[in-house]
């Protein structure tokens, strides 16, 4: 049951993302210029979904009709582009000649309906060696069926096999409950072709926040040691809410527990940027510098003025104070 509650948070994520696409927040022009199929990708996934599971489709539709305040769209936009930009500008600069021959793989833990593989495969092509989407068995099964249906309709856009993975084995969908033993996770990653000596980027987007503290420490430290045993080339991008030092975190905890029985075990533990980043710095090699920014900082300092103006014109935003409060409680960490 608890698993289902967590899995259903993907409905929130995908409904917000599609709402953002409908309102033209996404894709941002930078992504659009390198991957023009973004809108088509998400819309065709969403349109195919009711043929696989009407229940999920209806739940997402319902969320879309109730969760559509501009403040939510701006937050979803920032969450999406901040991860994309960290990857494209910081971890995988395409222009950098030294990096050009560097091949890499991406592991998205708790991927949900995220379809970044298609975007990155298009942008990085042969540099991307492998892309592994990991989530609960039910989520992966749905995703595999939807993708394989879509592949039959539009093989050029998807290029997948019948299980939803890519024909060349580059893209893998892997069922795994992250609350299980991390050694088991590592074994399974190996089975789907994960290369522990390759430059690797792990993405956890609203994933660690649902995992018990001890379990998440085990996850980070074991993955860190298995990848770093062979090469010092592990990167991590993590997006999560933080409780803050005000009442926000406690209210969020109460609201989500009361409304959905959803638990965020570490929201109040790693409640500041410093503490959230310590979660990693206490484990990984101390030479590596960990960067962390909250979404308000991203909005104020990382989004170019022209793009900011575009975003603010998508809809009429009535309130900035509230936006600041909400956005400063979500962070992106990367190294």
């Amino acid at each position, binding site marked *: 049951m608890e698993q289902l509650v967590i899995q259903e948070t993907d409905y929130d994520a995908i409904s917000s993302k599609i709402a953002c696409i409908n309102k033209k927040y996404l894709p941002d022009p930078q992504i659009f210029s390198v991957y023009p199929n973004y809108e088509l990708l998400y819309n065709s996934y969403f349109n195919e979904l009711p043929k696989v599971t009407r229940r999920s489709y209806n739940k997402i539709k319902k969320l879309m009709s109730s*969760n559509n305040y501009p403040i939510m769209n701006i937050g979803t936009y920032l969450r999406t582009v901040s991860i994309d930009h960290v990857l494209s500008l910081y971890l995988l600069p395409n222009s950098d000649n030294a990096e050009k021959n560097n091949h890499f793989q991406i592991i998205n833990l708790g991927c949900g309906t995220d379809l970044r593989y298609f975007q990155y495969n298009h942008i990085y092509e042969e540099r991307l060696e492998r892309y592994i989407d990991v989530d609960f068995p039910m989520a992966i099964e749905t995703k595999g069926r939807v993708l394989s249906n879509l592949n039959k309709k539009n093989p050029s856009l998807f290029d997948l096999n019948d299980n939803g993975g890519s024909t060349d084995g580059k893209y893998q969908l892997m069922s795994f409950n992250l609350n299980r033993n991390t050694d088991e996770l590592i074994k399974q990653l190996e089975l789907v072709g994960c290369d522990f000596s390759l430059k690797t980027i792990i993405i956890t987007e609203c994933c660690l926040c649902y995992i018990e503290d001890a379990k998440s420490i085990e996850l980070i430290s074991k993955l860190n040691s298995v990848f770093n045993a062979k090469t010092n080339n592990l990167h991590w991008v993590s997006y999560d809410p933080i409780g803050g030092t005000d009442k926000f975190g406690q209210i969020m905890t109460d609201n*989500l527990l009361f409304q959905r029985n959803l638990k965020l075990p570490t929201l109040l533990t790693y409640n500041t940027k410093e503490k959230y980043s310590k979660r990693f710095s206490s484990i990984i090699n101390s030479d590596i510098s960990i960067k962390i920014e909250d979404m308000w900082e991203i909005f104020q300092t990382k989004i170019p003025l022209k793009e900011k103006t575009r975003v603010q014109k998508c809809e*009429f935003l009535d309130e900035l104070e509230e936006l600041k*409060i909400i956005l400063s409680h979500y962070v992106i960490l990367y190294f």
Partner: protein
Amino acid sequence: MTDKIDKIIEYICLSGTNSTAQEYTNSQTYSPSILTSCESSYNTTNTNPNNNILSEENIYEICQYIQDLLIQEPNIAHIDTPVTICGDIHGQLHDLLNLFSISSGTNNSAFDDQDETNPVTVTTNNSNGTTTTTTTPINSTRTTSIPNFSQSLLNTRYIFLGDFVDRGFYSLETFLLLICLKIRYPDRIILVRGNHETRQITKVYGFYDECIRKYGNCNVWRYCCEVFDYLPLGCSINDGTIFCLHGGLSPDVKNLNEIRCIDRKQEVPHMGAMCDLLWSDPDELVNSWSVSPRGAGYLFGKNEVDEFRYLNNIDLIARAHQLVMEGYKEMFNKGLVTVWSAPNYCYRCGNVASVLTIDNNMNKTYKIFDAVPIKDNRGNSIIPNKKPSMDYFL
């Protein structure tokens, strides 16, 4: 009409206090229902005539009636002390009922489980001879009985600085309660227009959707929007040394008379004086009129405030419009104050709220209060069951 208005006030209050129907059936001619679980009671097709107190017909009637009342008020309404200035409410009905209890000093009778300790007050003497008092946050509990409005409105008059609707789950009840009170006590309550009291904004920020959800059509939304067009744009207190409005100043308004000659009975325009009064914000970092990040109105600084106060003989500009975590914020040597009256805004921001009381000697008292608990001791929630999720990024 008076009888009907009183019934509506009572009905909304009972709903807002989440009282169970059984406790009131003996004394009522209609059966009050818990708003959160019984939204169907709004529907006029409901077969139980006792449930139709908030019928479309009744709302139409009230909305027509109050327009006749509001049309007589000038663009800048006037009220005398003692008066309580209230900021944004945003459909948080339960907190509004609490606000009435706290501000009128009748809270002891209206609360159960009230904290026994008296609120600590901090008093400061101002240069102009008046004093400012701030109470420490009052731990709010859900009211369990109907506020005694005739007593509350005898103790103090009220100015509500707009943004009655949107965002919260009870915009309709909040607005109806306020206009019903205005009808019953016309010279003791002033409702000023906020930037959310427009058709365009309510369509995006919840009031429109709420009406559709409760009635299946947009008629009551349309009736309310017509009332919005008649609301005054500001309010002056006593001899005019305190001037209240929702947003802020406008480069098109040097003198108050320029507000008095606006033709206000229209949807708020996208630019110009009327728009600015409802949209502008003060900013300590600007030293002249600047572009507002909200996309409407202006940012203005100390210079603009000082000039406006000097030209119009105003000591204090009281406004709302911006969320303040501490409930209120004084700026520009106390020449301007922001009052915010929606605690735990949108049920998630964690802020306290305040009201500003001005007594007959022009002394200022800020009363700070917390949100009522989302769940009361009977397990009734103020979040509607139909709301599938709070607004978080998950």
